[in-house]
């Protein structure tokens, strides 16, 4: 039993590269989307703000798996847009979806920096851009860290959906194993869980760390 488990784990590592590469790339792009959308939602221009709000609400309000299917099956047919490989489809769908959620973290963190900080920056005649770059964002970032840690774990788990558009990730190999060794199905999926958990461990550690940094506080 122990040996079988070990064998299954070894078998699953074939999907490790796909899971990790999608996870890392999607995380980078999610953060990017989060900052772009989160900051534009604070823009003074109502059109820019509105566009960002539509993006956030649409992608938060619909399910990731449907978005994945849209990008994979519908968008290429309707608009003749080809995102390249299904690897990219997976990355883009996950990044857009989690970017929408995380943009709310960016937005609310920026808002929750004490108003006095903005006032002092105005009194010192910093430009809008300098205020954001040198005063507000460095403090807002600390507030974002714990939530960002949480979301990165969610993104990792979200990557499991890409097996549904034919990507050979950890879950995909779990399925393959089970379909050829039906009696070991439960053990196969247990190993899949363990594998995801092991990858998530450093992320859990990072978000704990983030919480500590955030607690070190901001207000003067």
């Amino acid at each position, binding site marked *: 039993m122990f040996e079988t488990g070990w064998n299954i784990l070894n078998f699953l590592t074939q999907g490790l590269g796909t899971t990790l590469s999608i996870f890392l790339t999607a995380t980078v792009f999610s953060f990017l989307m989060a900052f772009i959308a989160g900051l534009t939602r604070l823009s003074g221009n109502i059109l820019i703000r509105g566009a960002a709000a539509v993006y956030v609400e649409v992608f938060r309000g619909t399910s990731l798996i449907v978005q994945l299917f849209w990008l994979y099956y519908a968008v290429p047919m309707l608009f003749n847009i080809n995102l390249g490989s299904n690897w990219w489809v997976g990355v883009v769908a996950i990044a857009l979806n989690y970017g929408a959620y995380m943009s709310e973290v960016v937005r609310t963190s920026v808002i929750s920096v004490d108003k*006095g900080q903005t*006032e002092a920056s105005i*009194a*010192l*005649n*910093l430009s809008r851009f300098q205020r954001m770059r040198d005063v507000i964002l460095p403090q807002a970032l600390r507030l974002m860290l714990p939530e960002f840690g949480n979301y990165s774990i969610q993104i990792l788990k979200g990557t499991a959906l890409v097996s549904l558009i034919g990507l050979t990730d950890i879950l995909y190999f779990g399925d393959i194993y089970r379909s050829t060794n039906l009696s070991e199905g439960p053990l196969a999926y247990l190993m899949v869980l363990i594998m995801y958990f092991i990858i998530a461990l450093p992320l859990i550690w990072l978000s704990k760390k983030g919480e500590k940094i955030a607690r070190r506080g901001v*207000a*003067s």
Partner: protein
Amino acid sequence: MEPIVQYKNIHKSFGDTHVLKGIDLDIYPGEKIAIIGPSGSGKTTIIRLLMTLEEPTDGDIYVAGKNLWKVERKGKMVPAKEKQLADVRKDIGMVFQHFNLFPHKTILDNCAMPLINVKKMKKGEAREMSKQMLDRVGLGDKYDAYPANLSGGQKQRVAMARALVMKPKIMLFDEVTSALDPELVGEVLEVIRDLAENDEMAMVLVTHEMDFALEIADRVLFLDEGVIAESGPADEVINKSDNPRLQGFLKRFRA
């Protein structure tokens, strides 16, 4: 001498609350003004308007002859752009009740960062100037400390150094001792006294420190229910006025 700042019939409302009801005020270069009055009378709002933290509901403010909030375009007065506000802000500095230091920066960087960003100073020069100013307010041994590790009095002195190093022509003090423990008030007032005696800039203090106002101010304004109810030399306003509301205020205050 021309006033450096003029308020002309300034009104300010927050929602349904009419806070300022027609303020006319001239501030002359180098003048030291204290604004006293009951809480909620609009004292703080007066200086926040000048710092461009609030926009007047009605009326005009002129700084060095230039309309602060409006600009003429095609014969009509339209709201001024950020650039014009920034141009006026160059000459104005402000110290806040709650310090508003940047908690993620050392106190030296609190002072140097605006010099680098706004005055386009070289880093070394900015830090050198900041050090001199921190020395002046008695914090020469704290350059690398973070605000969280300072006492309230020290924080407020950093905040003053940070505003002073920008070389404003007008300095605004918004109840700068109100958030301090009583034993720390003295060290902050000491710095202000030093400025009042040795510095050319105009100063406007919103304060509850009546004796201090009497001591350093050229002129005291008593603000009551949104208007300047009394204005004159400190001694006259505080000791000789027969305005019953001012008397009542002073009595409650000294009790």
